[in-house]
């Protein structure tokens, strides 16, 4: 049960980290990192999102049932993205006529 009460101080640490990461991602976006620009931007977004889900949304302290719902939500999103992207990426690999 989520009877755990998160203190304002703990929320404060998460908040400051989120703000710093926003500055970092904005700064990194203006630098030319070649193909790494996308990777850095998305990696920072994933870290920020994880912080929000785990601490602001209390998933870190929540029951197993709720953790499963969160993970399955992300898993279905992953499935949606993965299968569609691999489909588009692999079209044209085999030279079938009239495809």
């Amino acid at each position, binding site marked *: *049960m989520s009877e755990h009460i998160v203190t304002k101080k703990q929320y404060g640490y998460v908040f400051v980290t989120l*703000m710093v990461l926003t500055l970092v991602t904005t700064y990194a976006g*203006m630098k030319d990192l070649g193909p790494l620009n996308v990777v850095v931007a998305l990696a920072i977004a994933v870290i*920020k999102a994880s912080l929000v889900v785990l601490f*602001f949304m209390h998933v870190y302290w929540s029951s197993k049932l709720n953790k499963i719902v969160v993970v399955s939500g*992300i898993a279905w999103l992953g499935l*949606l993205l993965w299968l569609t992207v691999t489909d588009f990426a692999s079209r044209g690999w085999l030279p079938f006529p009239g495809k």
Partner: protein
Amino acid sequence: MANHSLALRHQFDDVAQQKEASTFGMWLFLATEVLFFGGMFLCYTIYRRWYPVAFGMGSNHLSLMLGAVSTAVLICSSYFMACSVNSAANGKKKALVAYLAMTIVLAIAFLVIEMSEWHMLYTEGLMPGFNFTYHEMDPRHVQLFFGLYFSMTGLHASHVTIGIIVLTVMAVRAYRGAFTPDYYTPIEMSGLYWHFVDLVWIFLFPLYYLIARHLQ
């Protein structure tokens, strides 16, 4: 109902079970929301793979300043929402109402910033379906970029608007003393919804505002 302040519905054994059921239901709803937005993120991913140059040019018409500031505003708002939940759990009614009010004010600030961005794009003639008059390279696919931009930020803004309504109702209820340290589930559930709105923007910001800044 013996103890009205607990607001325990008869189908539940105890308050803890009732709260667990609410949290479970809310997370199921949020999982459907993930897929609702997920379809649009997928659409964005595919088209960006196909037309990276047009997407880059479109992206550089957005104001990086406004994007970064609105991200910061939304994160602050999320922080105040988290503090609202903390105040509710500790039974601090005044602080709860104050934090909810600050959350709402920042949510409105976010919408104002977003509207000014949209207005700026409108005056530049970049709003598909209204006045799209872009004559540089590859206007068709730049239009596709802005179509996706307005759909996704528009859907997000509608969620922000719903959030403002929900939080206003919560603030009024809190002011009237509807919540106690034993019963503040509606505040927690509104909080989950509000953090979800923040979560979507955390991905929208880099994908729309940052993709081609280094090429400017």
